[in-house]
């Protein structure tokens, strides 16, 4: 098989390698190479069953490829072979083989529980595999702990960002590795190097600012800068775009492309399949601890990925764009009057769209009596009410499923039963334990929550099951108006479908539902009506039939219809 190198053809300083039909695309970064190799085959190496041979063509750049170094470019940076892992007899990974090439963005997808986190924990040295080998640049390695992984250049950018809020950006980047001269921290040097590291990633952040003042997107950039500032070769990103708005995600993608052009590899974990096609080179799908697919992104479709992740039946349910089961009724459930005017009828699902910071969360929390009071007036069932505290809201039959279930939705250390029973039954003095238990068991069954028992702490559940516990809490309390803030954030596809079903079923029963979501597709598939917010106001309203992604984005960015 013959590969052609073309210099300067790829973005940044990258070097493109043109694959022949059927060949695997290869990316690598530029290194120097002697001029004498012009026009002659540069390399011929056995690789994954092919003989790979390459020549180069003169491009815009006058640098060359070093054939000696070159072999390295085809040796995966990281390779794991037949990795297996089980916890107390339950197999989590079964003979998974996986590799990342230098300068490659490799997407790793799969439902929660598919084994992604376990695999990444093994790769980053947090846990050890039961069987299987790991190779770093072709050499077998054994990681005794996260420290070993970092020493190799493997860094993890966690979903929950691990920064010290009160320290400056520069100090966070150099945390534990401050440049020191004679025992004194060299702040000036530290700031310069931090600014440089951020600048290379395309971020302009004042490195003297405390991290607490930064937006989530900026914090993420700081973490990435920390990962690459010290010979980072491989960065593992776990759902990096989950908390980001659209334009912030774009900036992140630009940073990732910059990294890739510099030869840094990225393992990119995400539930948002669309973005994988924009950013990744290859994609690997895990299902139930096995690798079910590993292909260049260009060769798969989104449908194939979803099928690989969940199988046929679930996929059809996801695509179901049927109107809400019961359809909207005429009686008004909730009305807001004032700066914001919005009416929601019983049995209606209203979608709340808008960019991050448009005021969706604020509106929902205000409705729930948890935000700052404002000048809007609230009517429930036609009756003017004033909800001063969440307690008032609960008493009036409102339910809030917050955007951050770990921080706001659940008492993580408490049992599933305690979480489900938290909002209901407050009018009683004594707990009616057996009744509570029966009711909780009913909802666990009805929502298909996978728990080991009522006493299992919520912290050990998967994201989807945690969110179902939050929903069960409000069903248990008998809420009649549901306010859902990003109800499927960070949840796998299967659980998403189930939560959509549940929302539709709730509406079918006559419950009024407001769903705020950053995923426009989700709103298009779910809502009877979509209300778009922009800077704390309602920018416009679209019926299901007329709503399109473009129209919503237009309104969300301040345009008029």
């Amino acid at each position: 098989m013959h590969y052609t190198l073309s210099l300067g053809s790829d973005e940044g300083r990258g070097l493109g390698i043109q694959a022949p039909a059927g060949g695997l695309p290869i990316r690598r970064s530029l290194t120097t190479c002697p001029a004498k190799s012009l026009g002659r085959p540069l390399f011929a190496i056995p690789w994954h069953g092919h003989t790979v041979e390459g020549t180069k063509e003169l491009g815009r750049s006058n640098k060359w490829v070093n054939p000696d170094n070159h072999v390295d470019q085809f040796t995966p940076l990281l390779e794991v072979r037949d990795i297996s892992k089980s916890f107390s007899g339950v197999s989590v990974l079964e003979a998974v083989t996986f590799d990342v090439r230098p300068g490659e963005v490799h997407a790793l997808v799969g439902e929660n529980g598919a084994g992604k986190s376990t695999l990444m924990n093994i790769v980053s040295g947090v846990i050890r595999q039961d069987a299987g080998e790991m190779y770093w640049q072709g050499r077998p390695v054994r990681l005794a702990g996260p420290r070993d992984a970092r020493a190799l250049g493997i860094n993890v950018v966690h979903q929950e960002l691990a920064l010290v809020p009160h320290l400056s950006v520069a100090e966070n980047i150099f945390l534990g590795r401050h440049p020191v001269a004679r025992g004194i921290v060299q702040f000036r040097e530290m700031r310069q190097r931090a600014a440089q590291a951020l600048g290379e990633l395309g971020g302009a952040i004042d490195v003297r600012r405390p991290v607490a003042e930064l937006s989530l997107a900026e914090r993420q950039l700081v973490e990435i800068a920390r990962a690459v500032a010290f010979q980072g070769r491989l960065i593992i990103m776990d759902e990096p775009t989950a908390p980001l708005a659209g334009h912030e995600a774009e900036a992140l993608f630009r940073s990732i492309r910059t990294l890739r052009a510099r030869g840094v590899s990225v393992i990119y974990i995400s539930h948002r399949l669309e973005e994988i096609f924009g950013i990744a080179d290859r994609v690997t799908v895990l299902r139930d601890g096995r690798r079910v697919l590993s292909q260049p992104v260009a060769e798969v479709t989104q449908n194939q990925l979803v099928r690989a992740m969940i199988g046929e039946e679930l996929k059809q349910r996801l695509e179901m764009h049927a109107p809400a089961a019961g359809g909207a009724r005429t009686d008004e459930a909730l009305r807001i009057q004032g700066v914001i005017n919005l009416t929601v009828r019983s049995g209606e699902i209203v979608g709340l769209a808008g960019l991050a910071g448009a005021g969706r969360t604020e509106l929902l929390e205000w409705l729930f009596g948890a935000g700052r009071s404002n000048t809007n007036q609230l009517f429930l069932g036609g009756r003017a009410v004033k909800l001063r505290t969440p307690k008032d809201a609960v008493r009036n039959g409102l339910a809030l499923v917050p955007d951050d279930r770990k921080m706001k939705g659940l008492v993580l250390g408490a049992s599933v039963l305690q979480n489900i029973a938290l909002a209901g039954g407050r009018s009683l003095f004594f707990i009616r334990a057996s009744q509570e238990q029966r009711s909780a068991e009913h909802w666990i069954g009805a929502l298909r929550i996978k728990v080991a028992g009522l006493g299992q702490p919520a912290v050990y559940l998967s994201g989807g099951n945690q969110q179902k516990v939050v929903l069960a809490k409000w069903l248990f309390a008998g809420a009649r108006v549901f306010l859902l803030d990003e109800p499927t954030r960070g949840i796998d596809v299967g659980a998403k479908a189930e939560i959509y079903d549940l929302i539709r079923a709730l509406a079918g029963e006559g419950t009024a539902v407001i769903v705020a979501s950053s995923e426009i597709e989700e709103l298009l598939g779910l809502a009877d009506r979509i209300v778009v917010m922009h800077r704390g106001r309602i920018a416009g309203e679209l019926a299901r039939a007329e709503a399109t992604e473009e129209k919503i984005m237009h309104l969300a960015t301040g345009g008029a219809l």
Partner: protein
Amino acid sequence: MSEAPKTSPEAIRPVPAVKPRHTVSAAGLLRRFGPLLGLLILCGALGAGSERFLTADNLLNVFRQSAVNAIVSLGQLVVIITAGIDLSVGSVLGLCCVVVALLMRAGVPPLVSVALALALGAALGAINGILLTKLHLPHPFIPTLGMMNVARGLALVISGGFPISELPSSFRFWGAGSIGWIPGPVVLVVVFCGVFHVFLSRTTVGRDIYAIGGNSQAARLSGVPVDARLILVYAISGFTAAAGAIVLAGRMNSGFPLAGVGGELDSIAAVVIGGASFLGGVGTVSGTLVGALIMGVLRNGLNLLNVSAAWQTVVIGIVIVAAVWVDIVRQHAAERVAVA
């Protein structure tokens, strides 16, 4: 409300619930009975060291001596479950001790004096709670540290620094009396433990308290009136401090302004030895009672073994740290089981 579910939408057809398995694991048993096991081992060791230790008289004596700390610790427990801390209990105990004695000397009937002292303790605690929630002081350490100084100072001011002795005999029952062979303070401890156990594990308010400690924001967004509960919690802690004062004054037959110095630390020690977590959301009445008994048994046993007071303090310090360390080790073991 917690009745058969009102909405049972068709699409979420009830399927037979996965019957929760109530497994009894070694780790779970150890977690529940670990402190008790420690207490029994300690008693065995002290019994082997001194033949006087395991006599009925001496054990009743241990209970009597532990009563004040046990009662005060119950209030401290409730506070620590909410991830708080109450540093004022020792001083509130001292102030209430002086106040109840002064009231009775002024001719107020003992029962009324006791009620007033209990109300004073609860009120001082409530002030702690109000300072914490309404002034938004950053941590309960601050208001209760303030109250610790204020209450101790007031106790010294109104007593003039002198103990108030010769209290009515009817008042002394709860400190020095007995029902049959059971000392009054022990009866009181049993009643308090029963009430607190039911309160924490069987009432909705008790559940709110655990939820606040586990995640106050989630609790608030589930409709728990967090501020009101916190004020109640600190009032309870003040109340138990006052109850401790009644027992102590009765036992010593005097109200003295330096009563309960260091009591806050003894109560915190009992609570954490009993397995509660400073991070909140965890803690039991039985554990706390065992914690208080471990402290009492240690003091008593070391006395019998003629260990000097100075060395006793050293031993107790080591026991506190060791008990919490054992608890942490145990939790890690339990987590490894639960994750898998």
